[in-house]
């Protein structure tokens, strides 16, 4: 147990904070909900709910009867505040104690929470100081020690800088959001004390924001549009520009912050003027103009400092420095004016928003407790079994109801519900035997709530963790029985494969937008087409082995312009709970949209469809068989023959069924067809890899041969070495894409060497002359180039010849491998 005071609290007029000194370091606790280090000193009451901090401040201007701020100014007076909704009277002490209790909620460390240092302004008299102490006791602290704010700031400064100040005087200049204070502080024989102070309770950063609006934005607005009574319409609640006023407050504050490290701040917004004209307003606020707006306010703070200096008969030289605290001291003009005027060090080493609480924590860390108290004895735990919770653990609605039943006395207790992501806080509510609460939920996520019960001095006496999943699973939502996939082209294997869109057991309804690329150029008015096929089934098998559930085909005749290879297609796939599939395709380049809805009941397997598919299987197998026999791969060839035999059997069975027969037979055969498709894929995959590895060895040998050529450079040799250095590894891994990339690299080395060799260029040109542009889509352009090359060849103009070959090569690269697929492919990749 610590022998010194536990916590330091800055109980501010506008903001408060809590910190602790632990092993030489000060920890400023963050609000567990907003994660901010400061808590606005505002309390609101709504029905039975008590709201403290940011949310209460939001209501300040709108519900003045129920929302209370700035009550610190009334500490020690007999003034009290009436809560409009309930008629209850609250003293500034009671309101302050609510703030202190809320700050206790920030503490996440273990140990005693019974003693505290609370800071007070240097201007507080004995009555005001005693009132602050009383607020501390009402908040449940057993020991309350007071500390003047400028001393706290000075302590923070001294500890931060490791200064060993033995004597001297300095000023603590505190310019906050709404108030200004300055204190002459001195250290005499090791004792820190306040010699004098001045202040203005109505001067701060908010006034600067208002100056930007009133003196800069409003005049500019009047120049740019027609506005009658603009100020009134902005500032009154019923004014038509009242909404804009709040936006301008935000923009003005942003601009003010921007000007702390930039010469210009931009202010941009839209407004419709009285004539109905829409105005796009763009303003540049320069640092000079901003400074002219706040000059008078800053001068006023200087006058107050001068008054202190004069009253205490000291000169500028007697002051060691001016210590700056409060958020508004970030403004460069504040710093420069003070430096100009007093010519002494302007110390900005402290974080101006937490300096006071840090100083309070340092003081707490060195101040021994007056009396020893038992650790956490005030915290009494309530029995878990005495509280019953009822709620749905899985819901589809945006919010859900929580019911809590208490079987023990709840008098004087309050409860609070928070969501772990920081998006919800119920505020403090009185506990009763039975309570209900509406809990808002983050969609499609697990929502973790904490239900806390607090005693009269804000000690937590009960916690219950509540987990609710929104949208994921529900008895209403049906899981998807199979994967839903999209058929796309595989450039590597020259076939198509399935890409998952929705996975098995995803909960319906489902929607997904995916972006794919066009894998081949589709010319306007051509017969080429893009085919979007959606399958249901196994992701790891070939498309034909799965069930086609939806298809859109878009041919060149439907296009407004050519669809270039590589351009984007945005696909939207939706499946309703009743399993209707909606597929939409948007072509970015042509700005065209195509869509179709497929009902699951429309799925039809006819005899002719099955026959066509089985024939297609056999055609592919036939080509494969020829190739395997040619390559003497008899084992794989035998597998192909076996599959072909099974297809023939299936075809015979199919023949035996009448065309119009209504039975399950077609579906049974369709399942068998898909099984055969899977077997086929296994054969194709194996043989394609073998072929690719063979190609690699062939190109490796060719490149080695080329490297002997005198035209080969050191770079060519180095590149070759790099390509083949990890050959064993990539061939063993069997990744077709990697091996193809290696082949392409070897090919480019060979091409480069070839292009440097005139004789080879002649050969290449002869080859082009032989082909006559047949391999090109842009045949006429290719033939022009070939004619040019022919001419260069005749005249032995090798430079021209190389250039033409290069152009022909680039043209081919641009066109891509449009004839890549022996089968048509989908056109998607």
């Amino acid at each position, binding site marked *: 147990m610590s022998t010194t005071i536990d916590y330091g609290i800055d109980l501010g007029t506008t903001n408060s904070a809590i910190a602790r000194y632990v092993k030489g370091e000060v920890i400023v606790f963050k609000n567990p*909900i*907003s994660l901010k280090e400061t808590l606005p000193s505002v309390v*609101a009451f*709504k029905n039975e*709910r008590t*709201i403290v901090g*940011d*949310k*209460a401040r*939001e*209501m300040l*201007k*709108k*519900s003045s009867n129920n929302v209370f701020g700035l009550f610190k100014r009334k500490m020690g007076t007999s003034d009290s505040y009436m809560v409009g909704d309930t008629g209850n009277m609250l003293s500034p002490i009671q309101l302050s104690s609510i703030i202190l209790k809320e700050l206790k909620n920030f503490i996440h460390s273990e140990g005693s929470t019974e003693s505290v240092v609370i800071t007070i302004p240097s201007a507080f008299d004995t009555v005001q100081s005693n009132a602050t102490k009383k607020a501390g006791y009402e908040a449940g602290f057993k020991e309350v020690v007071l500390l003047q704010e400028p001393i706290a700031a000075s302590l923070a400064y001294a500890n931060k800088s490791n200064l060993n100040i033995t004597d001297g005087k300095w000023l603590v200049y505190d310019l906050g959001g709404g108030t200004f204070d300055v204190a002459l502080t001195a250290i005499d024989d090791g004792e820190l004390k306040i010699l004098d102070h001045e202040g203005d309770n109505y001067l701060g950063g908010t006034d600067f924001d208002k100056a930007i609006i009133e003196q800069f934005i409003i005049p500019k607005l009047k120049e740019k549009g027609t506005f009658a009574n603009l100020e009134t319409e902005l500032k009154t*609640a*019923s004014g038509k520009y*009242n*909404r804009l*006023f*709040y*936006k301008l*407050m*935000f923009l003005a504050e942003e601009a003010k912050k921007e000007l702390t490290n930039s010469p210009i701040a931009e202010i941009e917004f*839209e407004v419709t003027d009285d004539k109905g004209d829409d105005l796009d307003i763009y303003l540049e606020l320069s640092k000079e103009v901003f400074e002219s707006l706040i000059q008078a306010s800053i001068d006023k703070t200087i006058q107050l400092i001068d008054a202190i200096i004069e009253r205490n008969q000291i000169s500028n030289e007697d002051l060691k420095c001016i210590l700056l605290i409060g958020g508004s001291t970030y403004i460069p003009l504040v710093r420069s004016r003070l430096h100009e005027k007093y010519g002494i060090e302007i110390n900005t080493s402290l974080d101006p928003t937490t300096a006071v609480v840090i100083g309070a924590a340092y003081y707490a860390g060195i101040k021994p407790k007056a009396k020893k108290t038992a650790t956490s004895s005030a915290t009494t735990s309530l029995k878990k079994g005495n509280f019953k919770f009822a709620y749905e653990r899985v819901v589809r609605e945006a919010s859900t109801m929580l019911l809590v039943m208490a079987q023990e006395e709840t008098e004087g207790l309050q409860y609070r519900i928070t*969501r*772990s*992501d*920081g*998006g*919800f*806080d*119920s*505020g403090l509510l009185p506990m009763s035997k039975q309570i209900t609460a509406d809990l*808002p939920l*983050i969609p499609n*996520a*697990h929502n973790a709530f904490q239900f806390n019960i607090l005693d009269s001095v804000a000690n937590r006496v009960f916690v219950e963790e509540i987990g609710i999943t929104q949208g994921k699973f529900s008895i209403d939502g049906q899981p998807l029985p199979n994967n839903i996939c999209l058929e796309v082209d595989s450039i590597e294997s020259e076939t198509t494969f399935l890409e998952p869109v929705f996975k098995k057991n995803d909960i319906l309804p489902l929607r997904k*937008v995916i*972006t794919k690329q066009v894998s081949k150029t589709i010319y306007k008015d051509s017969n080429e087409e893009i085919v979007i096929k959606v399958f249901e089934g196994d992701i790891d098998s070939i498309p034909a082995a799965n069930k086609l559930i939806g298809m859109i085909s878009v041919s060149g005749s439907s296009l407004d312009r050519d669809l270039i290879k590589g351009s984007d297609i*945005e696909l939207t796939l939706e499946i309703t709970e009743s399993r209707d599939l909606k597929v939409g395709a*948007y072509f970015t380049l042509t*700005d065209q949209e195509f869509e179709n809805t497929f009902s699951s009941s429309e799925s039809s397997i006819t005899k002719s469809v099955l026959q066509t598919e089985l024939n297609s299987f056999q055609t592919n197998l036939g080509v494969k068989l020829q190739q395997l026999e040619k390559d003497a791969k008899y084992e794989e060839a035998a597998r192909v023959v076996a599959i072909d035999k099974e297809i023939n059997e299936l075809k015979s069975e199919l023949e035996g069924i009448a065309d119009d027969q209504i039975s399950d037979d077609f579906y049974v055969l369709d399942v068998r067809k898909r099984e055969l498709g899977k077997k086929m894929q296994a054969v194709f995959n194996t043989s394609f890899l073998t072929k690719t590895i063979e190609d690699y060895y062939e190109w490796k040998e060719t490149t080695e041969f080329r490297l002997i050529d005198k035209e080969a450079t050191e770079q060519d040799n180095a590149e070759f070495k790099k390509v083949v250095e990890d050959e064993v590894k990539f061939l063993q891994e069997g990744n077709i894409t990697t091996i193809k990339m290696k082949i392409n690299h070897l090919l480019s080395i060979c091409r480069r060497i070839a292009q440097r060799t005139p004789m080879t260029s002649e050969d290449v040109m002869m080859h082009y002359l032989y082909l006559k542009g047949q391999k090109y889509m842009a045949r006429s352009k290719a033939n022009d180039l070939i004619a040019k090359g022919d001419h260069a060849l005749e005249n032995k103009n090798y430079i021209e010849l190389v250039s033409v070959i290069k152009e022909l090569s680039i043209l081919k690269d641009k066109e891509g491998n449009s004839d890549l697929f022996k089968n048509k492919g989908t056109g998607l990749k």
Partner: protein
Amino acid sequence: MQEQHKALCNIINQFHSLEAKLMTSEENQSLSRRFQRIKKSFEELNLFVHNPIGEDYSETRLDCEASISGESSENLKIIEVIKPLVYFKHEGDNELIQRALVIAEGRAE
């Protein structure tokens, strides 16, 4: 990570303001698809952007910082969103990394 999130939120805020500005015009409706795609790219970074425009607002909503305009503070609706709210999803948890900055307006019943 915090610095990275801050930078990403700045981009998201610029994106939001661009979207809000452009989508007011009928002529720009075709851009909505692009905006959705950018949002999807944010989601790929585990950042979920939500624009709460038109939603109910109350003091229990900590995912928004509101300025309340108009005469009534009852039945509040979000009428303008200056910054959207941003969640970061990681290991199944949602972390609110930016509260929405909104203007809410009350309607007396």
